[in-house]
Structures are given as structure tokens and as C-alpha cells.
């Protein structure tokens, strides 16, 4: 029994999990996700924002990472001052910068405002955030809690921003319930799912009474509000709840996902989770009950985020590079403790646990299985920019694949996803076959040109081949890739080059997949050509 309720983090599986992997590869694995690269992608540092190491010794906030992004205009004194006015020192920092119009999403914890307290530095901090977006005269401050909860916090010397004390802010409550409500909601939902042969009415009433979909909708609505504020109103938004590590993480990551197609790719989604959840101190260890601890700290906050992504996938089946199984796999590993990423509660704790030295990262492991996690219907990075989901209640479905996951009898017996994935792998094989055959043909063609042309069937096939060709041809590369590769390897005589080449090939394939539709259209367009010749 002590195995199922570990007390010390060192007893977790991640510390003994030992795949056959070299030390170097393990370290490379941890470097796969680099948040700085993502800030660079947003154009940071720039005139308004900088990456500061003010928290390098965790002096400002011990649940934040060492490097945080703050407005350039906010100097160290402002940062320190503001941290004293924010619950657990979780000052406003940048979560996402929407490059198109400089509107930013920032996040923090609740202010220690009580009934009347104010803090000049905190007010300056918000002003700096607002002024980092010169396009808008105001900014939103969003408290994701129900108003009643926020007001109750005032009695404890916490609470929310007073609009009179901050210049040009628009304050708004969103009303997502707290971790305890969510925990009991999931509990009720699971009870409904486990009912023995319920009637339709039992199930729907149970679903309603659990409140689960209502909470999912509240999170989604909040994400949509943020995305709209940033994109349509061009206003920056500062988001907080109580500590700013649960609801705030849900809402900020969802808004980023809605605004930026990058986060809907494999790479981007990993970065999003590392950035908004892991780095910013979502207490995975407590929320997921990794260790025998306070059961009141357990709550399905991350599960709700994952479900929101799934709900978006239902509405936008071509917008995500990955499929449902990827979500389920990540969700599994948040609980499995096989990898180090989700251990502990914040960056500092993970450093203390030496997880970067002692455990493996989940992401390279998932990328190895990319083929099975990809979404065959993905239309590529540029197909959809911002997503504007419908949030009317009927747009939310019960996620049978998650909550009745192991009741296989309830799932569709045939899966479109499986069918399409096997199509994708078949496609690769066919394309290889085709180019291999094509390479053989000209070789045979040489000595026997007359015969080949005299056969009407063969003649047609030959004239047909260029138009149905593998897409390499369209990119103006020498067509016989395989022979090209073989000759390169022969020249250099090293397997290293060979490997590089295959890497390039697979990269190429990815690009090609993005162009699938275009290729089919192309091949159709060229259909008529041979007749004109």
C-alpha cells in the first residue's frame, strides 16, 4: 500500500524510471522546450517588454521561474514593491503578447487590497503594462473568480483592484468556481459515468447536476473573452484569481491557444503547457495528488483545460496538429509520475528535487510517437488564425473518450481517426513505391524506348505519372529523391550524412503534408495537360 501512496517525492516512479537513453539525450530532451524561444517568437525583448532575471534567486516570488517578462518601464523597485502587494509575491508578468497590435495578456495573483489598502508600485506596474500597448487607452483587469468569492477575500486582507486607484482600467469578474467546487463536480460526473445501465434521463439529469459542462463552459467563455479583448478591442488584459495558478493558468493558456495557431502544433502545445502551467507554478503535485497529502488540494484544473482543448477540436477538426489521443496521453502522464515535468509544485521545487538531473522529460517521448498522435485532418499552420468558438451550451459535448474511457463498448466501434491515420501511413508507403518504381522505369526505358511507347497502356501510365507525382517535383527539386540520397551516401561514405538526409526527408514530408490539399488540387489542375501536348 505504501507504494500507491508515496510520501516523499523521491519515491515517485520518475526517479527510478530508466529507459535506455544516453545522458546526453536525456539532457537534450530537457532542452527541447525553451521558453526564451517562444518569447523571441513574440518579438520579446522589444521596446516595451524585457526578460528580467530579477527573480533569479526566487527573491521576488518563490513560485515563479527565475526569468520573467515584465514591462521595460517597470524598474526593479516597482517590481519589488508590487510583489509585496500581491498574494505570494506573484506580480503581474507577461503571458502572451499578440504581436499584431501589441496587446498583451498578463497574469498575477490577487492584490492585498483588503477594504482600502493601495500600493503605488502596483499601480505603476499596471500603468506600465497598459502603456506597453500604446494602441489602447485602457486595459482590462479580469478577476476569474465569482464576485462573491473575491469580496469574501477582502476580509482576509486580499481581494481585488479598486477601479478608482488604477488609471484607465476596466475591471471585470468572470465567475469560474474554485478548486473545491470543481473537485466535487468531477466526483459527481464520474458517479454518473459509472452508473449501471442508466436511463437517458438519469444520465442527462446527472450530467446537469454535476455542473461539469457548466464549469467547462465558464472556462471557455473566459478564454474567449480574453482573446476577443486582445484581438478585437486591442486592449491588454491582466488576469488573476486568488493565487493565480489555477483558473488564471486555464484562462491564459486557452486564450493563447485561441489567438495563436502555433500553440495548436505539437511543439507549441508543449511550450504552452511548460510556460503557463509548469513554469508559472501550477501545483501539479498537489492538484493531482502525486503524494499522500491534503485531499482538499486535489482538483481537476488541468483536466478542465485539456477538455476545453478537446471541445475546441470538436468545433475545429482541422485546426490542431495533434489528435485526441495526444491530449489523453499528456493527461495520463500528468498523473503517472513517469516523467519529471509535472513533479513538484513550482520551478524552485523541481530544482531542489534535481528533476533535470535525475528524471526524463515527457516531450521527446511523446514526439517519438508523433505518427499516432497526429491529426490527419490538420490543415497546417496558416489555415486558421484566431479561433472563435461557439459557446452556446449545445456546442459542448460530453467527453466519453475521457470519462468513460475504459468502457470500450460505449465508443464508436469504428474510428474515423484510425481509418485516416492508416490512410496517412499507406500514403507514405505508396509514395515511396511510386518513386521507387519511377526510378526503375527510366532505367529500363533506356534500352527499350520503342517498346515502351508502342504499348498504349504503358504509354498512358507514363504520361500520367508526372501529374500525379509526389510533391517533390512541384518544389523544383531533382525528382528521384531516393537515388539522390543513395548517391550522396555513396560519395561521402558515412552513415552520418545518410542519417542527416533522412532527417531532412522526414522534415520534407512534414512540409509536404501541409501542402496535401494544394497538391491534389495541383494534380487535378494538371490533369488536362497531357492532352494538350
Amino acid at each position, binding site marked *: 500500500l505504501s507504494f500507491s501512496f508515496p510520501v516523499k517525492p523521491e519515491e515517485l516512479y520518475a526517479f527510478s524510471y530508466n529507459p535506455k537513453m544516453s545522458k546526453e539525450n536525456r539532457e537534450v530532451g530537457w532542452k527541447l522546450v525553451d521558453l526564451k524561444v517562444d518569447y523571441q517568437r513574440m518579438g520579446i525583448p522589444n521596446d516595451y517588454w524585457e526578460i528580467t532575471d530579477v527573480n533569479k534567486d526566487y527573491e521576488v516570488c518563490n513560485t515563479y521561474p527565475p526569468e520573467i517578462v515584465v514591462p521595460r518601464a517597470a524598474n526593479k523597485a516597482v517590481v519589488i514593491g508590487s510583489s509585496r502587494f500581491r498574494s505570494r509575491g506573484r506580480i503581474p508578468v507577461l503571458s502572451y503578447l499578440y504581436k499584431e497590435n501589441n496587446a498583451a495578456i498578463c497574469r498575477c495573483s490577487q492584490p492585498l487590497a483588503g477594504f482600502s489598502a493601495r500600493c503605488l508600485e502596483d499601480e505603476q506596474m499596471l500603468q506600465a503594462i497598459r502603456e506597453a500597448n500604446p494602441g489602447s487607452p485602457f486595459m482590462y483587469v479580469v478577476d476569474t473568480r465569482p464576485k462573491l468569492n473575491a469580496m469574501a477575500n477582502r476580509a482576509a486582507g486580499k481581494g481585488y483592484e479598486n477601479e478608482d486607484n488604477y488609471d484607465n482600467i476596466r475591471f471585470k469578474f468572470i465567475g469560474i468556481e474554485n478548486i473545491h467546487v470543481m473537485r466535487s463536480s468531477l466526483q459527481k460526473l464520474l458517479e454518473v459515468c459509472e452508473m449501471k445501465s442508466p436511463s437517458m434521463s438519469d444520465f442527462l439529469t446527472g450530467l446537469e447536476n454535476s455542473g461539469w459542462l457548466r464549469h467547462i463552459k465558464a472556462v471557455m467563455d473566459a478564454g474567449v473573452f480574453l482573446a476577443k479583448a486582445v484581438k478585437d478591442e486591442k486592449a491588454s488584459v491582466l488576469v488573476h484569481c486568488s493565487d493565480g495558478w489555477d483558473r488564471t493558468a486555464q484562462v491564459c493558456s486557452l486564450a493563447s491557444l485561441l489567438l495563436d495557431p502555433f500553440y495548436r502544433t505539437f511543439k507549441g502545445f508543449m511550450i504552452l503547457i511548460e510556460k503557463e502551467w509548469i513554469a508559472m507554478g501550477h501545483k501539479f503535485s498537489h492538484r493531482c495528488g502525486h503524494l499522500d497529502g491534503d485531499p482538499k488540494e486535489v482538483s481537476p484544473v488541468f483536466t478542465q483545460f485539456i477538455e476545453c482543448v478537446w471541445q475546441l477540436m470538436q468545433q475545429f477538426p482541422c485546426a490542431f496538429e495533434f489528435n485526441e489521443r495526444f491530449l489523453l496521453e499528456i493527461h495520463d502522464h500528468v498523473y503517472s509520475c513517469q516523467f519529471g515535468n509535472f513533479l513538484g509544485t513550482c520551478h524552485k521545487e523541481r530544482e531542489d528535487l534535481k528533476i533535470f538531473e535525475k528524471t526524463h522529460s515527457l516531450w521527446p517521448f511523446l514526439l517519438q510517437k508523433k505518427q499516432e498522435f497526429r491529426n490527419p485532418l490538420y490543415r497546417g499552420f496558416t489555415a486558421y488564425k484566431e479561433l472563435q468558438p*461557439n459557446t452556446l451550451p449545445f456546442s459542448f459535448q460530453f467527453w466519453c473518450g475521457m470519462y468513460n474511457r475504459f468502457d470500450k463498448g*460505449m465508443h464508436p*466501434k469504428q474510428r474515423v481517426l484510425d*481509418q485516416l491515420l492508416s490512410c*496517412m501511413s499507406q500514403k507514405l508507403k505508396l509514395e515511396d513505391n511510386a518513386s521507387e518504381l519511377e526510378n526503375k522505369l527510366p532505367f529500363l526505358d533506356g534500352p527499350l524506348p520503342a517498346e*515502351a511507347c508502342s504499348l498504349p*497502356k*504503358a504509354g498512358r501510365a507514363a504520361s500520367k505519372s508526372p501529374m500525379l507525382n509526389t510533391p517533390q517535383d512541384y518544389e523544383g527539386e531533382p525528382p528521384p529523391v531516393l537515388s539522390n540520397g543513395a548517391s550522396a551516401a555513396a560519395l561521402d561514405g558515412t552513415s552520418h550524412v545518410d542519417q542527416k538526409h533522412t532527417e531532412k526527408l522526414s522534415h520534407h514530408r512534414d512540409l509536404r503534408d501541409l501542402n496535401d*490539399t494544394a497538391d491534389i488540387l495541383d494534380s487535378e489542375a494538371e490533369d488536362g495537360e497531357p492532352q494538350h501536348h
Partner: protein
Amino acid sequence: MEFAELIKTPRADNVVLHRPFYLAVEGTLCLTGHHLIFSSRRQDNAEELWLLHSNIDSIEKRFVGSLGTIIIKCKDLRIIQLDIPGMEECLNIASSIEALSTLDSVTLMYPFFYRPMFEIIEDGWRSFLPDQEFELLSSVTDEWRLSCINKDFSVCPSYPPVVIVPKSIDDEALRKVAMFRHGSRFPVLSYYHKKNGMVMMRSSQPLTGTNGRRCKEDEKLINATLRPGKRGYIIDTRSLNVAQQARAKGGGFEQEAHYPQWRRIHKCIERFNILQESLIKLVEACNDQSHNMDRWLSKLEASNWLTHIKEILTAACLAAQCIDREGASVLVHGTEGTDSTLQVTSLAQIILDPRCRTIRGFESLVVREWLQAGHPFQQRCAQSAYSNSKQKWEAPVFLLFLDCVWQILRQFPCSFEFNEQFLIMLFEHAYASQFGTFLGNNENERSKLKLPQKTMSLWSWVNRSEELSKFQNPLFEANSLVIWPSVAPQSLQLWEGVFLRWNRPSKFLDEAHEEMINIIKYNKELQTKVNALRRQLAEMETDERMQENL
């Protein structure tokens, strides 16, 4: 009667059309005898909307000053709004639409006036004749015969002229059985399960009454379908209570004493106004724009629509199970045998018979088990979810059947040759159509109306390759297995394609469908190419060898 008399204002300008998800457009509204036509006057991209009057379920009018507004609610569940300047014009148009959408004579309906603009390759009226069906049957068994007892509809007015009955029962006996069954609907063959020779029959309730009347010929008829020593199952689509109450009105059920070889199972499937109210509630819930999740779920639950779906599918699974798993023959009936009975027999066939999952096979199923079997389409589909008429005989029985098929299709997306659009198309045409297929309540009425001579069949139009391509499922791979759907509440969903069709944009889902088609099409093309290359290579190699041999 001339339609012109009903149209006082045939045309109005500067009318504004509002539709869900489209910008409002200004244009001209025209009324003809059968259509409401709206055409925008924008030169660049002229838009036209043609709406059959028979598709209109209800209309409402409102006035703000001299600007009138007509809200038209259609049987396909769409709602459109027309702003018409001029009080008089608006009133005229509204009353014309009201009159034209509620014509009481069938022969004034559009199918009698419609002239097809396509070439008819195959006359759909002759596509699914009982003789062909019987030919298929007689290739596997000789225990059945085609009886022409009803050739002038004199024995059973709601049966087709020819029916399939056990060979050992002669027409004289059939006449007696007909007297013993409600509406004379004596037991006939519905489905023959080739795998084990078991059958499914359907009929109406026996007229046992309170004093337990019996009919030897009836017992003989249904016993003729049993193998020696084997038992059969009677699936009564009413609860035991309802079946018992039916005795007071002369109806009843088969008593164990007289049918010792049969086990009776009661499965309660609702009928008539309960279903109609369920549809009305569901559609109202779907049109509710409130953001309150609890309200939506509680309305969805209160509509009971999915409960009906679950009940019908459960009964169909039971029938299929008796036949395939228990190796027993089955008789299905409710009261009249024209509604829930047909839902069960036709769904059981979809589960059991791969042929019914092809386009052609499904059409044949609809013809056999719904049209020829005498489901009163004209009564049931006269009105839809927005009507205020509340006639007892209106009920979305056929729509529930299509919804059940969609549920199975969703669970077995690769086992059907047709797609969701095909089912939606059938729903639309059952309620309003330019074709005569769904007019009338049975073959008798259709023959009196001379529909095959005077109207075009839906199948003539659908079964042309241009149309068929829209209804084909790219994932289809013929599957000869029995497909058992799950009826757990978690496995059943709201049919968005019908009920949310006009309430949410479908752009992203359409794109996904397109993408799927492209992936599969590209693969097929690749396969063709590889095959061609292989052939070419093989041919060359043979040539080479021949040359070497020379």
C-alpha cells in the same frame, strides 16, 4: 381552383431577408403557386432563395409602423425573416403564404406540377418492385410465396398489392387471418436472415378483445415460420399495460395458451402526440439562445427525444439479437403496425443486413418497410416542429428512424455506403418535396392518385451519378458483419446535422469533411498510379525477357 386567386400581391420590392449566419440582403420577393422566391438585386453576386410553400410549417407577422415582418418557420427546422415595406403588401403576402402552404388537396401539391430538368435514366417508380425482392429471396429458400391476395387493396387497404407469406398458407387462410388483425394487417415477411434462415415478420395487433378470441389460421400462419421444436419471439412495441388496455377496444395480444411456441416481450415505444411534443420541445431547446448550460441540459432531458431514440434502438437490437444470436424467428407488432413496428423491423435489418447499409439497399428498405408497408407519411409528416395544429396523427416517426440510423452510422462510420447528408435529404423530402414518393398514406392511395404516372419519383433523381456523389461516404468499406450499436446514454448524441443545422455555422465541419474526402481520394489516385507503374514495369520486364530469348 386557380393559385392566382390566392396570390393578391405576387411581387414585392425592397424586401429584406434575414437568415441565420448570413448578412441581411435586400431584394425582390415573388410568390408563385408553389414557391416563395427571393432574389437579391445585387448585380455582382445575385442570390436566390427558393422555398416550397409545402416546406412552411408556420408563419408569424409583426408590424412596426408600415414595415411588416413575416417570420417563416420551415419543416426542415430553418427560420427565416422577411421585412416587407407596406402594410397591405405584407398582409397579402402573409395570407397567400398561409393559404398556399396549407392546401388541402394532394393533387394541388407541387409534385403534380413539377417538370424535371434532368434526364431520367431510371424510373424510380419501378426501381424497387416486390417481384425483384422475392426473386432474391427465392434464390435462398422456397418456403415463401408471393401472394396477390391484396391486388385491388380489398383485403388490407394499407398493404401493397403483393406480399410475401409462408408457402403453406393459402389465400383463403390469409383472408381469415386478416379478419383477426387490426386494420387487416396480417403477418407478412419483413426480413429473411440468410445466415441461419430465421425470419422477421410484422403485423398489427390481434383482435382478441376481452373474451380472448382466437384464430386458428393466425396461429398456423406464424407457426409456419418456426423450425421444428424451436420457439419464436413476439416483440410487442407496447408496454404490457397498454397492450392489456387495448383489449377493451377489441385489440389485444397473443396469449401464451394459444401461442405456446412463442415468447412475448413487451418493449414500450411511444407514439403520436408524445413524439410530436418531444420534437417540438427539442427544437425549442435548440433554438434557445440562452447561455445557461443547466437550462439547456434540462430542456434536452425534458424533451425526451434521446430517450425515444434509446428505446427504439433497444427494441431493434433485441429483435436482431433474437434472430442472429438466439436463432429464433420474430414477429413484431404494436397496435396498427404502421409506426413503431416499422421502426423496429427496419432498424433490425440495418443491424443485420449489410445490403441495407448500401445506398441502393437503404432506398429499397425505405420503399419496402415504410412506403409499401403503409406508414402514413401524409398524416405523420403534414406538419413539423413549429406547427400549432396539434393533430393527433402527426408524429416524427420517420425522423426518429433516420436519427437512429444516424446514431448507428456515427458508431460505425465505415460500414455505410451513404453519409449523413443522405439521411438529411430523406428527412427533407419526407416533409416537403418536388417528388411524389412520399405523398399519400399507402400504396392504395398512391395508386388512386396515379402518382407513378403523374409525378416524378425521388429515386429517379437521387440515383443519378451527379447526385449520388454527394451522398457517398468516402470511408465506406463493405462489411458483411452484424453491427451491434451501443445504446448507452453516453453513446447517443443529439443529431446536430438536423437539429443544430440552422443554429450554428458548419464551415469548419464541412472543411473537415472535405479534407477527409481529399485524403482518401489522393490515396486512391496514388494506388492507381502505383498499379499502373507496376504493370508497366512488368510488361517491360516480359518484353526484355522475350528479347533476351530471341
